[in-house]
């Protein structure tokens, strides 16, 4: 089992790489689709802005590659948001692998923007493989100002003024809005689940 960790050049991938090391999960850093031959699953991490990240992915031919790939794919944070069709952050079209649009988190009285900190995983689908041995109400670390509203692909959600998609899945494509690499024991469990699902 080898995970290909996609390096777009504009995201911090060190944290995810270290988390995979701590979990004892075999991985390689891949820069373009031609380097993924030995990988049986892929992680698209993401920090930064949607527009810049999409431009980098386009340059390397990732959007086409994802459309025909059937290996499990996990998007993290911005990487999850890019799986949808469109992002309000910079008004950009994104990968379109999951139906839906990413919106700006509403400014809500009494809540600060962005959504930053540990939030509880609320309602979730008990058969979601990423959540094996994770309990309702456990906390994960979120940092984001845009969000995917709860929709058909949502398998776990968090409450922050709006109902935020915390984990989404459509077939072999999944994403976490929170950072499993920074979510303590719960996050490590989710990464291990990804490696075995």
């Amino acid at each position, binding site marked *: 089992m080898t995970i290909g960790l996609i390096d777009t050049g504009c995201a911090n991938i*060190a944290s995810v790489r*270290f988390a995979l090391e*701590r979990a004892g999960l075999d991985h390689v850093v891949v820069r373009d689709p031609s380097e993924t031959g030995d990988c049986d699953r892929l992680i698209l991490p993401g920090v930064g*802005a949607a527009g810049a990240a999409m431009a980098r992915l386009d340059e390397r031919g990732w959007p086409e590659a994802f459309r025909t790939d059937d290996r499990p794919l996990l998007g993290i944070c911005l990487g999850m948001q890019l799986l949808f069709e469109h992002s309000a952050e910079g008004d950009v079209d994104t990968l379109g692998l999951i139906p839906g649009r990413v919106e700006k988190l509403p400014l809500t009285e009494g809540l*600060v923007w962005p959504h930053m900190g540990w939030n509880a995983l609320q309602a979730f689908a008990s058969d979601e493989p990423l959540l094996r041995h994770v309990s309702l109400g456990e906390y994960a670390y979120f*940092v*984001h100002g845009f969000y995917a509203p709860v929709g058909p692909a949502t398998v776990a959600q968090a*409450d922050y003024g709006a109902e935020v998609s915390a984990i989404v899945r459509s077939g072999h494509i999944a994403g976490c809005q929170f950072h499993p*690499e920074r979510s303590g024991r719960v996050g490590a469990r989710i990464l291990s689940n990804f490696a075995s699902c």
Partner: protein
Amino acid sequence: MLAKRIIPCLDVRDGRVVKGVKFRDHEDVGDIVKLARRYAREGADELVFYDIAASARGDTVEPEWVSRVAREIDIPFCVAGGIRSVEDARARLFAGADKISINTPALENPDLIDTLAREFGSQCIVLGVDSRIIDGAWRVHQFTGDPDKTLTDHRKTLDWVREGIERGVGEVVLNCMDMDGVRDGYDIEQLAAVRAVCSTPLIASGGAGRKEHFKSVFELANVDGALAASVFHKGVIEIGDLKAYLGDEGLRVRP
């Protein structure tokens, strides 16, 4: 809903963790990675590392220990101290830091905030503010890493926080200098005043001495996180106990 964050702060000098009282008389309290690991295990929600001498020396934090920390811990952490350019920030973020905090360089060149926020996103840019009462108003200080170089900046704290947020910071850490290290409680009045103008997460710093101080600052100043150093380093407060206490008092904390 979000949990209130408990954040041990590790002041770093020459690769070791140190702690002073009112920014002076630093004593060695231990190895960076060892302490970071201990706090993560005890339930800290986040860690902040301040290279206390970097701003005053005019150089920047050494990324080597940043990646040592990132490799070992599974909670978020922020690195502060002398970050003056996009390259300084990038080196730390790409070494595995989740956020970088800027203080003096932002005062000297406020445009740096806009540049960093554009490059890396607001979510990883923290504004560190050292504030105390001068001439009857809360004002911002500079160069707090070296007593010989401390000078008074004339910016008012509330104005500076507003400006920082307009320029794109995603979080504010307010260090109330008059309270730092004396364990008399957080500066509730000042933190509440800053809270009123701060639309991003706000972290309280300076003054924690007892568990009740954390409860007060969360309830009365409505901050998102509370940072402390000496009470944790010296074992006066154990993080697990603190969180159990706060939970019993009805505050939402991550167990």
